């Protein structure tokens, strides 16, 4: 589904990614871990098309298409979704209007009919219940005045409604208490399916207690320095990132 080859990128002339290689197939869950500043969020942003990064080398293919050639919204149309680390507050933009317009934009781009109001309401209520997001927040402005946990639940709600093929979760666990973490993870797990892939970017192992990855990659200084199964996350938890960084430097 997703094939990243030697991806090198910089911000304001400063190299952040120094040759990322990653293959993701449908049905897989990949965890990307690493210390602060290792390039985890940059990778997530570049995949979703955020401005401000210069890709100096490498390729990213998504279902055979050159992903980096696509506009941000075109990536969304073809099934890429980024759950943000810091979801943006949109005062005055109604949460439900936003969700419905997003769904319809994606449907339209795929040549599908728009969702009718009744089906939309039914679905959004059902999904909000699953992520334990207060229905009142659906009627409010997007993320405006939401708590950290509510913002993340809202991200997962959007993900559930938009049903992406490739979902990237950027530090979704940050700022969450244990109950919220579990709810968010439950929501993510509901989306696991043989034709969908997930990339979970996280600093801590604890999210992976709830979202069990098939693969764990450790990113340091813009490179994947170690890949392994879920046991790698546990080993990291025990020994810290320094253990690997020293190994990589040696």
């Amino acid at each position, binding site marked *: 589904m997703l094939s990243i080859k030697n991806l090198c990128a910089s911000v304001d002339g400063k190299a952040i990614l120094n040759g990322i290689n990653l293959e993701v197939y449908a049905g897989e869950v990949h965890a990307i871990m690493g210390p602060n500043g290792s390039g985890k969020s940059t990778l997530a942003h570049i995949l979703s098309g*955020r401005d401000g990064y210069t890709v100096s080398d490498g390729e990213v293919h998504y279902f055979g298409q050159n992903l980096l050639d696509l506009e*941000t919204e075109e990536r969304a149309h073809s099934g890429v979704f980024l759950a943000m680390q810091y979801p*943006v507050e949109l005062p005055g933009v109604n949460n439900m209007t*936003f969700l419905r317009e997003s769904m319809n934009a994606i449907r339209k781009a795929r040549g599908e009919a728009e969702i009718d109001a009744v089906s939309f309401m039914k679905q959004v209520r059902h999904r909000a219940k699953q992520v334990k997001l207060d229905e009142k927040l659906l009627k409010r402005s997007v993320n405006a005045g939401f708590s950290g946990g509510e913002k993340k639940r809202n991200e997962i709600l959007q993900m559930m409604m938009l049903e992406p093929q490739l979902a990237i979760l950027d530090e979704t666990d940050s700022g969450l208490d244990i109950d919220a973490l579990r709810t968010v993870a439950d929501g993510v797990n509901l989306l696991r399916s043989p034709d969908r892939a997930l990339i979970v970017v996280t600093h801590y192992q604890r999210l992976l207690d709830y979202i069990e990855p098939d693969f764990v990659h450790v990113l340091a200084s813009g490179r994947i320095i170690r890949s392994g199964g879920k046991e790698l996350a546990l080993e990291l938890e025990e020994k810290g990132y320094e253990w690997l960084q020293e190994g990589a430097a040696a």
Partner: protein
Amino acid sequence: MNACASVFQQAATEYIDSLSNCEGEWLTEQRQAATQRFTELGFPHAGLETWRYTSVEGLLQQDFKITHRTQAFLQHEVIQQFLGEPVAARLVFVDGIYQPNLSGDTGQAGLSIGSLRAAMAAGERSALRGVGSLSGIGDHGFAALNMATLQDGAVIQVSTGVAIQQPIELLYVATKGLSGQVQHTRHRVVLEAGASANLVERYLSLDSESNYFNNLVCEISLGEGASLVHQRAQEESLKAYHLCDVHLDIQGDAHYQGVNAALGGAWSRTTFHARFGGEDANCELDGLYLAGEGQLTDFHLNVDHSVAHCESRENVKGILYGAGKAVFDGLIHVREQAQKSQAHLYNANLMLSRRAEVDTKPQLVILADDVKCSHGTTVGQLDDQALFYLRSRGLDKDQAKRLLSLGFASEIVDSFQSEYLRDHLREEIVKRMSYERQV
């Protein structure tokens, strides 16, 4: 006096002659005095502080005519499409002329409502209920012209202690027939002590190419403890000219809550003059203006705190796109004796284009020493992070811009009490901004 002004003076004189003194002596004198005032003042020019950023040249080049019109016609079905929620009373004006057959039932205990034309024809000064008492015969050329050649409008009075729950609507529809002409309209609204009402004014053009000049004055007196909700929506064609002076006299304990949306017009200028006549009075005003390609939108405030313990709050937002231009000029004057006043003035502008321009000037002149006052202005663009967020959810750039701009406007749109108007204005804002893209 320039050539253009003399043409208008001539037209005004002819207009008054054509009325052949059928309106009563007092009004005829007012008209003549206003003509004289106009002759002295001429048209406003950039040398005057409140007209500094506003050129009237574009308007004068249109060569609009003042004509003595008494008839206009529009089918009932056409009006139907503009009717929203149930009203206590509705006056429909086509090309500025009151249409009794298109208007609703106007009878209600404690509410007196009728057209200015009928009041003028009555010939008695009392029927006019103090027209000119707040505005005088005109403090600038356009206002003087309005008084000199008054055509029609609404005269509304709510009796002491009466609460009119449903809106009183003044619906103005301009047809192609108005093109090339000036429409001189004046509303006189009196709420006696303890009365309350909800006034809606709507200005629409049937044809998007309609080119006319709507020159209005609105005089509102709120007696002690009276309360008025005032919703104004100006959605005229992009070739129309709309000029309106709203004069407010707010007595003690009275409350004015206004919201004004200025969406249309090649040039649209709205000025609110508010004066407090007693303590513990309150004036709240929300405003929204759009200015796109070829549009100039002017918004002026002149709030005079001349007595103690009054509050005023104004929040005006503008969306500018294309080569749109806007002027915001808000003056709050707190006089020496007006202790314990509260005055807050905000203006925020969203610039969607590099070619757009806004001149904003909020001013607080405070002579009292025990007051709470603040003012603020912002001129900004859409947030890149917000745009990225929306696009990452599948909305294209235009959709994302539109949704964020509506979000910016929603604070003001939401202060319209009428749900019908809120929904309608959202649609209208989107429509006007999309039209821009196609140009």
